[in-house]
């Protein structure tokens, strides 16, 4: 592998890892702060992708801005959806044991998949990237790198920085950090925990949905797309340490790199490598790379 190819592969790994981070960050926050295991998180990713598909025609006449309008509308819808969902299905789950959380959210996956099937059918759909992002940057004679993928990476980096700022600088962030290491303490700080959880959950849903929307043009939208993402995000969260945004970022990038280079160098074992990585991390640090204490 020559240097140019290697660099491009690094770029690929980075982009994939960043996208994973976006989904996994919501998952790890919901785990860490609220103590809820949410199997339905992948469904929010799917929801986002389908929103990108369904909403795009509504904003088509806005031209280049239509894409951003779609994203904005999707995020708003996702927040509202997450808020209502938390109220309806999750608010009473916090006191329950993990087994019930697993069950409830497993039931939700089934329901979401069927509702998706009823509402949108079972076909595969493509989503167009906005025209001004759909080009490629030529690299050397044959290689080219799609601009849209750079765009995804850029957005993810911005979001990661934004998340970092929120968590390390704001009062909300302080509560999140406190909650991740000690849930009961948050309530003793005089915070309305129910409201905090609802906001957190909505934010988690929005992050996953946004990831889905961003990914839609490169991944297309198809049934069952959420479950695939879910399990790899579990791996990311386990490696990174539950509740740790920093950990999620590091782990997502690590998983992205292992997956990308695994495909190139060990195509036979590519599917398993990520799990081997997880096993190794567990051996070394059962609490993940960045255990939230």
């Amino acid at each position, binding site marked *: 592998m020559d240097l140019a190819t290697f660099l491009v592969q690094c770029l690929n790994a980075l982009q994939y890892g960043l996208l994973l981070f976006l989904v996994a960050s919501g998952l790890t926050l919901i785990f860490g702060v609220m103590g809820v295991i949410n199997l339905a998180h992948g469904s929010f990713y799917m929801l986002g992708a389908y929103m990108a598909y369904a909403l795009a025609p509504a904003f088509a006449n806005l031209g280049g801005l239509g894409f951003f309008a779609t994203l904005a509308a999707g995020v708003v819808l996702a927040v509202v959806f997450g808020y209502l969902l938390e109220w309806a299905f999750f608010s009473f789950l916090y006191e329950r044991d993990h087994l019930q959380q697993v069950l409830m959210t497993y039931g939700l996956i089934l329901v979401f998949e069927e509702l998706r099937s009823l509402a949108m059918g079972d076909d*595969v*759909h493509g989503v167009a990237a906005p025209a001004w992002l759909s080009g490629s940057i030529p690299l050397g004679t*044959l290689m080219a790198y*799609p601009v849209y993928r750079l765009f995804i990476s850029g957005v993810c980096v911005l979001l990661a920085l934004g998340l970092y700022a929120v968590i390390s600088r704001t009062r909300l962030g302080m509560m999140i950090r406190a909650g991740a290491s000690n849930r009961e303490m948050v309530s003793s700080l005089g915070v309305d925990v129910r409201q905090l959880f609802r906001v957190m959950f909505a934010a988690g849903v929005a992050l996953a949905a946004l990831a889905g929307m961003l990914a839609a043009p*490169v*991944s297309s939208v198809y049934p069952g797309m959420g479950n*695939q993402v879910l399990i790899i995000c579990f791996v990311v969260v386990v490696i990174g340490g539950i509740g740790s945004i920093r950990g999620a970022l590091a782990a997502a990038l690590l998983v992205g790199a292992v997956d*990308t*280079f695994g495909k190139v160098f060990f195509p*036979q074992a590519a599917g398993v490598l990520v799990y081997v990585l997880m096993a190794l991390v567990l051996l070394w640090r059962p609490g993940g790379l960045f255990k939230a204490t």
Partner: protein
Amino acid sequence: MKRSIIALAFAVLLFPLQSMGQAKLKVGLMLPYSGTYAALGDAIEKGFRLYLAEQGGRIAGREVEFVKLDDESDPAKATDNANKLVKRDNVDVLVGTVHSGVAMAMAKVAKDNGTLLIIPNAGAVAVTGPMCAENIFRSSFSNWQPGYAMGEVAAKRGAKKVVTITWKYAAGDESVGGFKESFEKAGGQVVKELSLPFPNVEFQPLLTEIAAIKPDAVYTFFAGGGAVKFVKDYAAAGLKDKIPLYGAGFITDGTLEAQGADAQGLLTTLHYGDGLDVPKDKTFRAAYAKAYGAQPDVYAVQGYDAAQMLAIGLNAAGGDVSKKAEIAKAIVAAKIDSPRGTFTIGANHNPVQDMYLRQVVGKDNKVIGVATPALADPGRGCKM
């Protein structure tokens, strides 16, 4: 609790028995009605029903009754599901399915129970290879066939060095195997076989690898969501106009709307396509459109032909499904007048058919010629 379980047991075990006792021909449709392949299952059933409607709802003089079952494309439940149709509903014929793994399980059940099975899609080579049996037929293709045809095309078009890329799963391996066989026979060389785990769709690293290898052409086998994404990524990586992409037909079947401009001009091989100069196709398309208000696809054709094959066999056996030897003899001897053009059934019960070379033009897979005429699957390992 206990009482409700017993009540449930009665409902589940005994309910379907009510409709027994007539001399209707029971056809068990075991197809995906939910999940990723639901649209395919639907098209197959519509095709099957269209032929039946043309025959006045009867096959070999017997009224047809359908027993439908959603196989969910889940091989873990496939044996149970097939058993349910065979043992509980006592179907005379099994028709299904799309997913190869499920079809493998169905073949096992059909072989064990001697039930007539017609597979209207799944291309698993084993079913008409080592698993072949007198009572198992396929109206579609084997995964090997489109690949083999494309190998010849690629060689004819002057490619010497080719990279293949597919999901690491049986259908992909079989398709690539077919391609490699004919391509290397014609003097070409497959320099690298790339693959990624099914149904992973993160192709970017592999595309980078292709760009680094710089082959003369790329052969690919993907279907459904993966096909859409691969074609788009291939174009986005800037490879589309520089390295020709050849594929088994599924890469552009039912996916063109989603692929848009990125699929234009792609060459694929399959046993069906748009703009075929076959009279039967024209009447079929018109009838299908009239009946369902939509254009048929290759899956509908396969469903239609499954019904035709069933009719041919049963007519020869006087409507008696137990006369398996006569059914098999009639089907193998027949020239089947299909919308895809006339085809026959080989000794291993897989279609011997023209493989068309098709090019994507607009939203059509336009047939531009015959890649390999009357291509028969070798049926390796089949002993009948």
